[in-house]
């Protein structure tokens, strides 16, 4: 089976590092991370990940805006995007999902459970090849 490519986007260096390590606990994940929405847009086009994990609160281009841009571009529109955020009030989660996010993961995340949560969000890959 091909490894699943996960792109992790967060402006906090520490969290990015930890998230990457946590995700790499799953041997079938290939993880890359970047620190801004703008970087995410180019990485998404170049690398074509299977899932993008977006922090919501980022300077310049925040998570929701990044998602909108990703959805607007035909090159990235089909990549599923999930948010990872400390803002998980009900109405906020509703808003994220309404934007088309496939899921919302709460911060602080459990480093040992993160990969499992992300796996659940990956599209099933049993369609016609």
């Amino acid at each position, binding site marked *: 089976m091909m490894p699943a490519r996960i792109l992790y986007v967060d402006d*906090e260096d520490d969290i990015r590092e930890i998230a990457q390590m946590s995700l790499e606990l799953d041997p079938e994940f290939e993880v890359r991370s970047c620190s801004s929405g703008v970087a995410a847009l180019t990485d998404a086009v170049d690398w074509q990940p299977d899932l993008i994990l977006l922090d919501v*609160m980022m300077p310049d281009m925040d998570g929701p805006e990044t998602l909108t841009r990703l959805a607007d571009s035909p090159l990235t529109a089909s990549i599923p995007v999930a948010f990872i955020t400390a*803002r998980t009030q009900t109405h906020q989660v509703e808003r994220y999902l309404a*934007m*088309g996010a496939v899921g919302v993961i709460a*911060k*602080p995340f459990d480093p040992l459970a993160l990969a499992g949560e992300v796996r659940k969000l990956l599209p099933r890959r049993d369609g016609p090849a």
Partner: protein
Amino acid sequence: MNEIWHSLLANLALVSILVVAWDLVADFTGRLSQRVQSLLLGLVMCAGAIISMATALSVSGFVVDLRAAFVGAAAFFGGWPALFIATAGSIAYRLYLGGQGASVGIVSILITAVVGLAWHHIVAARSRTMFDIFGLGVSVALAGLITLLIIPPQVVAGFVQQSTLPSLVFRFLSTFIIGVLLDRQERRRDLAMSNMIYRAMVRELPDSLNVKDVNGRFIAANPATAELVRAASVEDLIGKTDFDFYPKDVAERFRQDETGALEAGQTLRIDQPALLPDGRQGWLYTLKAPFRDEAGKIAGVITYNRDITEQKQNAQLKNDFISTVSHELRTPLTSIRGSLGLIAAGVGGELSPKVANLVNIAHNNSERLVLLINDILDMEKIESGVIAFKIRQMPVRPVLEQAIAASSNYMAESRIRIVMVDDAPRAEANIDPDRLHQVMANLLSNAIKFSDAGGTVTVKLQRRDRDMLRISVIDQGAGIPEAFRSRIFGKFEQADASSTRKKGGTGLGLSIVKTIMEKLGGAASYETEEGKGTSFHVDLAEAPRQAEKPILVERRERKRDGRLRVLICEDEPDVAAVIAALLEAEGFSSDVAPDIDTAKALLRSRDYVALTLDIRLAGESGIDLFHDIRASPVNSDISVIVISAVADEARRSLNGSAVGIVDWLEKPVDSARLHAALAKIVGRRVEKAQILHVEDDEGLLAVMSAGLGPGVSIASAKTLQDARRAVAKRRFDLVILDIALPDGSGLDLLADLPLETRVIVFSAAEMDEKLGDRVQAIMTKTRASEVDVAKLVRSMLIATRDGSAPTPGKERR
């Protein structure tokens, strides 16, 4: 004899004239103090008594008159001051008249005064009735008889005997008449006073208050209303309607609310955005209550508007604050918890036992901090009402079972067994399942925490008294120490400070339980015995179980006339009813699903043209339903109209590009917007586009069919002959045509096709443009994928539906 009757009758006329005169004067004395009014009353009554004596029949020194009525009434209505003046004046005049009966006359005056005063005190504590006045009349009349005792017998035998009966009758009559007139006068004055008070209240009220008739015309309003609607004055408002002051759409919305309240005969309460008098955009709390006339018929509607902009802003500020704090605290915590978790798990390599121990301590405490922040935020959100309770009637047991299941991890770790005892099977209550789950999770973790390893925790559901359910979580732990019991539901309380470290937990759990139970209209309590264990109880009112299939409200069967059916996913029955009525008016039939499960069940069993979706349906899963629908092959083409209190917010963030969502409507639902959305849907779905796919490769047929989705109806033909048969039988909107068929060239089919049928040639052969105008597009297998074809098909269908001209030229890939 006759003389006495005549005289008294004349006296009675005098009484009436005097009282009416007083009535006129009294209109001008209303502003005087009560004492002065009483003195004035005494003076007038005194004058009445004197005139009565002066004009009465006098026989051998005895005067037969109606002074008693004046004195009695003065005491009764005026109290001491009036009594004093009336009595003193009457006695003085009687003395002046002199004669044999003077002493008897004075005694009679005094007795009457006492009787009047007695009645005055009897009714002082309550409001006067006609019976009191009647009683006063009777007792004043009878009191006159007492004087008979002190009149010398020879007089009694003569004149007095003759005068007793008429005197009795006229004393009563005159007292009663004076009483009734004075009473009415006082009532009138009270009414005027209370009118004045109400007017002042309404006038000074900073909130808008107004009354409209059934046609929406203002009948009465206070200055705040005039200010709100920007009318020049209250007078300017009367007789006009909202349409004279607001733009048509706004006035229509108001009118709709009013007719809603009028038709339902019920009070309507809404928070609505509005333009405030100072020109700011703000929020109003509006109450519309129908009022009825004396016959009980609804005569109009009373509207009350209060500016709640500040409350709304404060709530928003608080919400933002919670959100910010939670984010600011959680961000560094994410790094700490993450690092420690990874180190503790050995990701960074093997740790020495000493270091492992230290890391574990740090890791456990970071976990505790996470829980603590979550608990504090929960508590805050519940108390401040940020968390809206979604209360609905449902069975209790499944919630308990879910909570037990959710605790199972923790349970296994501590080797504790949880037993469920259900003594009230199928009991239902009005609950918010998420919040009850939270209550149970807290109680269970508490019980497990304070149980010894290998112990049992019992969850028991039972009926307690009539209509009351009790859920108990029973442990066999150490029990709660006496000294701690009073503080058990307090915040940050744990029995033993050291137990926090030992047992974990934040000390907020039970406090959250109590707060939630209060909001659910229930109660939390406990029983404990040191050394034996503790039982925590939560009590809830049981709701009578509804008939089978309670949650599915079948609105109507699909009519024979084939009306299109819409599914309303909405958990508020009132809103659902409004949407259903709007749909009905638009010629649709509808079903209502109050929760996700019902919605899914209905979607499986019936064909719907559209779905109205409340994003907050039954908790937070409205969006889940949306994703489910999109993912499911059965009804992924259904049109969705989102109707929600947060629709606008959600839409803005989407830039209107959410796939498959026809429109986003704010609550309250605007009928014009709904109409437009439905029109779009009908345009899209009146009938499915008919497509014929001519292709001998079975795999490709299947892929194409899947690619086009259920929004179209696809027929397939593997041979030219099959294709000809299909084309002869019915009309197709579009044909996807392979050229190389087992029994000939697909191009031969072109002649059989009606002109309006569009054709896409999808073939392995490289084609040139010799095909003529009959083919709209040519696609070559291997160059273009099935997905490209599907896309092209969709765009061609949309172009056809929108009535745009046929695609000029040919598309070629």
